[in-house]
């Protein structure tokens, strides 16, 4: 009989309940979308961060007397052998003091393909060199190009002692960092110019993950590369560690706000419904219905709306999450089934909270209602 009355209750006030259902579905849709985005935000944001440059540096300890120490390029093979799961890019660097004509300049030999992967935010006039072992082209920092009078396609001859190398300018980069004053070549050219085959000054790594995950990777590297300093770039790791909780906090409070607004929508519908139901409640009490029996009916009605609104909202939220993901991160947000029970639970909670006016019907005095008051 309980389900029979519940079914009739749902059918009897279709208009008002439809309004409440729309409020619940809308709220649930936004919540579901934001929860989906939230679950994906960590992954997406760390991926985004990894386009912003290296977040870890491996270098030999400074030699006595301030001499620049060199590491063996063999460490690159040891890093690769560790198969770090979140390693995005590995770029070795060898810095060489060279001359272009009579002007001194710092030459940075590196792996172009890894640099491009790690620093997609660099502003480049011309283009980045994509082949790791391109021995014909170089990238010139914006300031260095101005000082040396280099433009795109200019030939440039670099000398170090009695060794020299001839290259063509493929791109002029503006990074806002040390690279603006340097010329970037492939690693082999720099080693040949310096006469240091197999020598590197440092290795920059870009590792995806949260701050603790990056710390964990740093510990693994330090353990496996004895004698080398492994240093996470703290500012970047810290920024990542700060931004992510802030984004998640923003999503959390947005969800909370949406839920409160949905509840107000439900509250308005339920208040009108409560006025309509006063007579029924008075009658039910006169017939011997306890407050608990009557409230169970109304709360089940609100709960049913919550489940329905939560489910519909989840479906709409999937579409919304896809749209938000594309707009915000440029990728499709993956639907998460774990969001379904959370959305339904939240929506049922909102529906029950919004049903407060119906709960107040428990205070109705049957004699007043039956007298027509």
């Amino acid at each position, binding site marked *: *009989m309980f389900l029979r009355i519940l079914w009739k209750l749902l059918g009897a006030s279709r208009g008002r309940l439809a309004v409440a259902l729309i409020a619940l579905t809308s709220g649930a849709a936004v919540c579901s979308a934001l929860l989906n985005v939230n679950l994906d935000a960590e992954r997406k944001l760390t991926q985004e961060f990894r386009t912003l440059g290296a977040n870890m540096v491996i270098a030999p300890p400074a030699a006595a007397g301030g001499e620049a120490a060199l590491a063996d390029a063999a460490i690159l093979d040891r890093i690769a052998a560790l198969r770090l799961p979140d390693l995005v890019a590995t770029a070795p660097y060898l810095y060489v003091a060279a001359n272009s004509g009579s002007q001194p300049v710092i030459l940075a030999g590196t792996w172009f393909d890894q640099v491009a992967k790690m620093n997609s935010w660099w502003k480049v006039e011309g283009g980045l060199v994509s082949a790791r072992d391109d021995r014909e082209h170089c990238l010139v920092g914006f300031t260095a190009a101005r000082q040396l009078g280099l433009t795109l396609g200019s030939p440039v001859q670099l000398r170090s002692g009695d060794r020299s190398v001839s290259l063509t300018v493929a791109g002029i980069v503006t990074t806002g960092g040390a690279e603006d004053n340097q010329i970037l070549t492939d690693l082999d050219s720099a080693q040949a110019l310096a006469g240091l085959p197999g020598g590197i000054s440092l290795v920059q790594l870009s590792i995806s993950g949260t701050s603790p995950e990056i710390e964990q990777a740093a510990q693994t590297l330090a353990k496996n590369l004895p004698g080398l300093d492994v240093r996470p770039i703290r500012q970047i790791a810290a920024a990542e560690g700060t931004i992510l909780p802030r984004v998640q906090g923003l999503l959390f409070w947005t969800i909370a706000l949406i839920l409160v607004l949905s509840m107000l929508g439900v509250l308005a519908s339920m208040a009108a419904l409560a006025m309509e139901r006063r007579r029924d409640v008075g*009658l039910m009490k006169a*017939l*011997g219905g306890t407050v608990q029996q009557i409230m169970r009916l109304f709360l089940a009605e609100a709960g049913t709306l919550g489940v329905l609104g939560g489910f519909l909202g989840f479906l709409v939220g999937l579409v919304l999450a896809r749209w938000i993901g594309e707009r915000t991160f440029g990728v499709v947000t993956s639907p998460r089934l774990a969001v379904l029970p959370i959305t339904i639970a939240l929506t049922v909670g909102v529906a029950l909270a919004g049903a407060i006016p119906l709960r107040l019907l428990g205070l109705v005095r*049957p004699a007043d209602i039956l007298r027509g008051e």
Partner: protein
Amino acid sequence: MARMVQPLVKVEQLEKRFGEVRALDRVSFEVEAGEWIAIMGPSGSGKTTLINVLGGLDRPSAGRVEVDGLEIGNLGERELTRYRADKIGFVFQQFHLVPYLTALENVMLAQYFHSITDEKEAAEALGRIGLSDRLNHVPAELSGGEQQRVAIARALINQPKLLLADEPTGNLDEANEAIVLKLLHELNESGHTILVVTHSQAIGNLADRRIELEHGRLARISAPSLAKE
């Protein structure tokens, strides 16, 4: 030694006040099981208030009301609800059926609040009052007389000790009034105790006794059926 028969309803010095207004003023009477009592009097004399107090819908301000051995003035809210479900059947002038439930479901609603529902029993109760073909009709699809008969079936489904009817024919035409009165008469004949609030002298004359109220006071108790004999 003669065995003392306890009255089903015992009202002693009953008072009911609404603020300064004294709706019932030191009313006392008794009702034996199986009696048909008409409660009569002009508008505002306290008839409905008396029914409400007897039915546990209102609480007495003073005095004693005992129904089937239960002092209802002392009952808590939960016990009073149980009292209404177990011992009282209500019939109202406005029928007061739940509009979105069918005739059958309206009767089953009383079963639901009492204990467990029995659809067959509810259908039989409606069948006994000639509504077998109206089981699945909602109140809006029934005539006034049919609605009142559904209300009577609902009032009786839990076999209450006391049937309280407040102007049960007040909203009916003559034909339907006759049907409802015949039904009440049959119920009384089968042993039900009935208290009917009415303005109608004709209905008053059908009762075993008439309790007449004026300004909340008991004006007189008469026995029209004895006079008829």
